[in-house]
């Protein structure tokens, strides 16, 4: 019985105390007709040696491709200390810090996280995490609709330059409440939303405008103009951003005259391994005045009986366990351990470290772009400024090229053929600081081969 400590003697003593003949008797309130036939379709147990052998065999089949893809998940170096500390039992096996006095480790760390993340976003405050970037955007949309007192609309403007899967997730979540997402087109030449194309929306009432930065193509949106336009038309502005980029790119809090109202996105670039897409974490930050509309856990600083500083879950009246059907969200368990890793990551990197990581990634992407566009049949697709991720146009369908690259050991980017058919044979590629010049050269070479 793995992990069950009872000796036969213990079991007997306990049954005696209960006054039960056997364990079976403890289930006597379950109607006989419902009793199950057991779990025969589950294989028999393995000891740790056997399961280790099994999993290592499985893992051995899955040698990762050398990654030149981004599209929402970014391979950055993670200092060894991050996960060695994060998986310490005291972090790994604790739960939501309901008993604050016995959870100051987690609570103080989350308070530090809130500080770091709100600064990164240029916003007043952050919560303690949501599930992932896509669902964070959905929560941001719901939050904006609750928060926008000036608008009664249940419609939100969202450019198609937002990650296609984010748009799907948002729709899947908010459509249940009858909220409508109205998609904004982008300029297929420059690859960004054109502010002068927005006049058509000025007549109707929208609760919010979503702005991605960088957008799904890696391009930089004209966030200042877009933000001011939205505010002029009584919309709230939701920035959905790559937090690593925010080390050097203007964060939502600095957009336009007043800054965005809500910032959200995917926290993965900050110390979380790619790991087949999860667990990652969503972040959300906002202005002080929206705090009571915030979903999820929030940690606050307070004092103990002796007047010493301490940290607690606060504003719980927003949450499901108190507010139930009137809560700001149904979220309960969030992605605490991921935020633990991110906080440690940010402390180890410092401002300088995340800035350099962002810049180095961008510089590498520039280098790759230069090499790729030197290949016949490859062009840069858009004219807008981009950041560490960029779209290239091929003279042939992207899918077979990606397949050839995979055979050569590369994850060569993300084909836009399905989600952006209007772009033809286009591919979004990304390089991070993890790639050496040599690796970039080799990839460019393999790319040229694949195009032949």
């Amino acid at each position, binding site marked *: 019985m793995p992990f069950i400590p009872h000796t036969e003697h213990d079991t007997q003593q306990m049954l005696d105390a209960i006054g039960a003949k056997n364990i079976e008797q403890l289930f006597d309130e379950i109607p006989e007709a*419902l009793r199950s036939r057991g779990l025969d379709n589950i294989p028999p147990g393995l000891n740790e040696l056997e399961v280790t052998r099994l999993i290592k065999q499985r893992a051995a089949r899955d040698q990762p491709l050398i990654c030149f893809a981004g599209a929402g998940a970014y391979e950055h170096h993670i200092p060894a200390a991050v996960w060695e500390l994060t998986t310490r039992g005291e972090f790994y096996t604790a739960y939501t810090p309901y008993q604050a006095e016995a959870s100051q480790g987690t609570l103080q760390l989350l308070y530090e996280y809130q500080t770091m993340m709100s600064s990164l976003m*240029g916003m007043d405050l952050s919560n303690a995490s949501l599930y992932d970037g896509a669902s964070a955007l959905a929560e941001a949309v719901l939050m904006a609709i609750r928060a926008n007192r000036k608008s009664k609309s249940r419609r939100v403007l969202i450019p198609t330059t937002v990650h296609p899967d984010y748009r799907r997730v948002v729709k899947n979540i908010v459509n249940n409440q009858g909220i409508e997402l109205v998609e904004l087109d982008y300029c297929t030449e420059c690859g960004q939303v054109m502010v002068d194309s927005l006049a058509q929306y000025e007549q109707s009432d929208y609760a919010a405008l979503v702005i991605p930065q960088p957008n799904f193509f890696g391009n930089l949106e004209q966030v200042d103009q877009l933000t001011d336009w939205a505010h002029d038309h009584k919309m709230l502005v939701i920035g959905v951003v790559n937090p690593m980029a925010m080390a050097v790119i203007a964060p939502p809090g600095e957009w336009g005259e007043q800054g965005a109202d809500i910032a959200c996105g995917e926290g993965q670039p900050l110390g979380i391994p790619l790991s087949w897409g999860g667990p990652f974490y969503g972040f959300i930050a906002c202005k002080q005045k929206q*705090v009571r509309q915030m979903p999820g856990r929030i940690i606050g600083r307070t004092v103990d009986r002796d007047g010493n500083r301490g940290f607690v879950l606060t504003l719980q009246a927003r949450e499901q366990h108190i507010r139930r059907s009137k809560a700001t969200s149904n979220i309960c368990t969030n992605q*605490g351990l991921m935020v633990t890793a991110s906080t*440690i990551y940010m402390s180890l990197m410092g401002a300088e470290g995340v800035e350099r990581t962002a810049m180095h990634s961008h510089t590498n992407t520039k280098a790759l772009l230069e090499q790729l566009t030197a290949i016949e049949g490859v062009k840069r697709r858009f004219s807008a400024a981009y950041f560490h991720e960029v779209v290239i146009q091929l003279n042939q369908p992207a899918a077979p090229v990606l397949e050839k690259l995979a055979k050569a050991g590369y994850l060569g980017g993300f084909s836009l053929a399905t989600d952006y058919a209007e772009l033809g044979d286009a591919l979004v590629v990304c390089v991070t600081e993890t790639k050496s010049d040599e690796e970039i050269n080799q990839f460019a070479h393999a790319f040229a081969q694949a195009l032949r």
Partner: protein
Amino acid sequence: MLIFEQSQADRFNKAQQPGEAIALSDIPSEFRRQQRVALPGVSELQSVRHYTRLSQKNFSIDTHFYPLGSCTMKYNPRACNTLAMHSNFLGQHPLTPASNGQGFLQCIYELQEILKEATGMRSVSMQPMAGAQGEFAGVAMIRAYHDARGDTARSEILCPDAAHGTNPATATMCGYKVREIPTGDDGDVDLEALRAVVGPQTAGIMLTNPSTLGVFDRNIKEIADLVHQAGGLLYYDGANLNAILGKVKPGDMGFDVIHINLHKTFSTPHGGGGPGSGPVGVSERLLPFIPVPMAAKTDDEYHWLTEKECPQSIGRLSANMGNSGIMLRAYIYARMLGREGLERVADYATLNANYLMVKLMEAGFEVALPGRRATHEFIVTLKKLTRETGVTAMDVAKRLLDYGYHAPTTYFPLIVPECLLIEPTETESKEEIDGFIAALCAVKQEAYDDPEKVKSAPHTLPVKRLDDVRAARELDLRWTGEESLIKSG
């Protein structure tokens, strides 16, 4: 000390600085950040020391008995973590083609199969990232089902008054009105009350069985029939699956949809508040609506099912495959326990809970439902103690910390006054449980002898009792100390 208070503006950790600083000449200055981000400037040692010491301020399964009811704080096998963190899993970008992830996909596929067997459902999707998102998926499928039939008048979801807060909150997020059903004195759902509210406006009911009161609802079949007859569907909140693994299956009880908390029954870490994983299982009639992506198998090849193959699906709730790494941990756990091991989980979780309940009753504690069997958990109510001494359930919880035990869940379910919801789990030994009983008895005695001591507890933790009210009144949600410590220049 906060990490920021150890910071200096121009201190940095060179080991983590990639390359030289590189100019961003191609990026117009309008796009550039103006104010440097206020991250701490600390050495690697400062950071390691800070977070190591912070961690020591936590209670956790690895350090303390943690009988937090409804949360199933059982041992998280270290092998699950170590193996799931194999670099070949961690290094996989979510866009990796399935052909390059057959090992991983096989694990996920087989986990789906294991969960099908454990729940008796027709199919299981791993997409939701926690229990509440599993609930969301489930209720969204209920909506999709009614919509697909053109049955659009169903506007209500029923929830017992003892339900976990995520149940009503989820119903709201899915655009439903919530109607509460009272609990009978015996702890089962009040059938009469249910009959009174169920009807053509009923989209479904969300139930937890064993209920959040720690008892198995004996009328589950009647409830199922009632709701089904009215055209509603049955949602099973699987947070308490630990208590019935191999004993009874939600599918057999007539449920149409279930979520499972892998971070409870399947022993993935709670991580100080996640990540969890909340797979949903469905009956035949909800099959078309199940969320994607899902792992599938064709002739020994594993692949992903997406929106393309499942056009009626409620779609994805995550940009990727959900919390993949957590699924791996659950899979490894399930393989280690195997069929016999998983069946024994319910046995010993139930044995521990009933033993603890009986012993506490012997020691003069009042349980909420004395006539009933405990399942994997049960409720003690301290209302008498509070009346006689002024010591509340919260005080007792805090005082337990001084004795080296994490407190049970307090004040949930909301319908039992001054309650403690106690879940020992199967991985705790009799000795540990006996120690906890002794501690609870000692605290009770203290409540009579020296109530102030209990009311002012804890006394031995890194902080004394914290002021929640002040935290909410004088909001302080981020450090705004000497900016000079972290800003350069």
